[in-house]
């Protein structure tokens, strides 16, 4: 069994975004796309700005329980990865 990946902000992402009433638009420095994200996803990205972290650490930072960690966090991380905003580093 492989150990869980470490997540980090994709190199080159400066996190240029604006939030209004719980919804945010973010400029993707790599693809040039603009994304509509919710505040949680943005907070996750800001958290990763501090440095690479494993999912467990991220869950702890947001005080998520194990269920939420699996269900919500993983989905969001996968989505953000598909957008080239974050990437998983193999251990």
């Amino acid at each position, binding site marked *: 069994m492989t150990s869980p990946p470490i997540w980090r902000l994709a190199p080159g992402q400066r996190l*240029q975004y*604006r*939030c*209004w*009433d719980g*919804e*945010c*638009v973010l*400029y993707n*420095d790599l693809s*040039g796309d*603009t994304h*509509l994200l919710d505040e949680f996803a943005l907070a996750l990205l800001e958290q990763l700005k501090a440095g690479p972290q494993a999912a467990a650490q991220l869950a702890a930072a947001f005080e998520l329980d194990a269920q939420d960690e699996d269900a919500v966090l993983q989905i969001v991380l996968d989505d953000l990865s598909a957008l080239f905003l974050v990437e998983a580093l193999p251990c």
Partner: protein
Amino acid sequence: MLTVAALGQPELRARLRGPGLRLRTGPFISCIRSSVPALGVALARMYGDYPVLEDDVPADFDVLLRRPRGLRRLVKPQVFFHYDGMEPFQPLPLAQLYPMFEWAMNWCVSSHAHSWLVIHAAVVEKEGKAVILPAPPGSGKSTLCAALVARGWRLLSDELTLVRLEDGRIDPVPRPVSLKNASIDVIRAWAPQAQLSPPVADTMKGTVAHMRPPQASVVRADEPASPAWIVFPQWRAGAPVELVPVPQARAHLRLAENAFNYSLLGAAGFATAARLIDATRTFDFSYGALDDAMAVFERLLAERR
């Protein structure tokens, strides 16, 4: 300052046929050439108030409208638009020469003017505040724009909203307002004093005519405006007026969708759009009657006094 009207027809035609007529529209200088006499007639009618320049300043755009050479010109009268030796569009029937000129002028700006975020939207101003009207075709944007202009709002543009990258102000590029199909008669009735070009039928957009902008708008083409509202119009027959706020993040995306060069500008496009959203209130607007629509805009203005 020399204007098209002051130039006189013979000189106007000579310049069009020869070295080019250098016309200033807002921040841009276009060098326009055509040997087709009808263009000189149209420019005299629609651009009388516009400044004409000499060749001591380089033009931004090079617009050539010409007919094909040889036998083709007899068989099927057509006009081609050339820009710097390239042909951005397919040729059109000669009867559509003047609408083609207006489309060509729009194309020049929307394809190249990357010192601004160029939004496909009308923009008008009153009491120092500008309202931006983005909309895809069929939304009634141009009719609304023409109507507002006829009721004293200053025309900045009917198709191209130029938002400066450095400070978010809007630079005017006032040009004749394009009207389609039913809206031609609507505006004729609404503003009997307005000067309209002869309608041209069977274009890609149906029957098309243009409204000459008020001289007051043209002479103030150097005066930028500050944006106050973004209103997404949707005309529906018989609809009551309704102004519904649009959530700002969504408005940002809709603005981006309506901007020609948002993607090209990258981070600067994003920042400019975001600043615009911060500076304005954004609404979806439905209406059926122009009188009702005018009242809504005057009310918006009153709220900000």
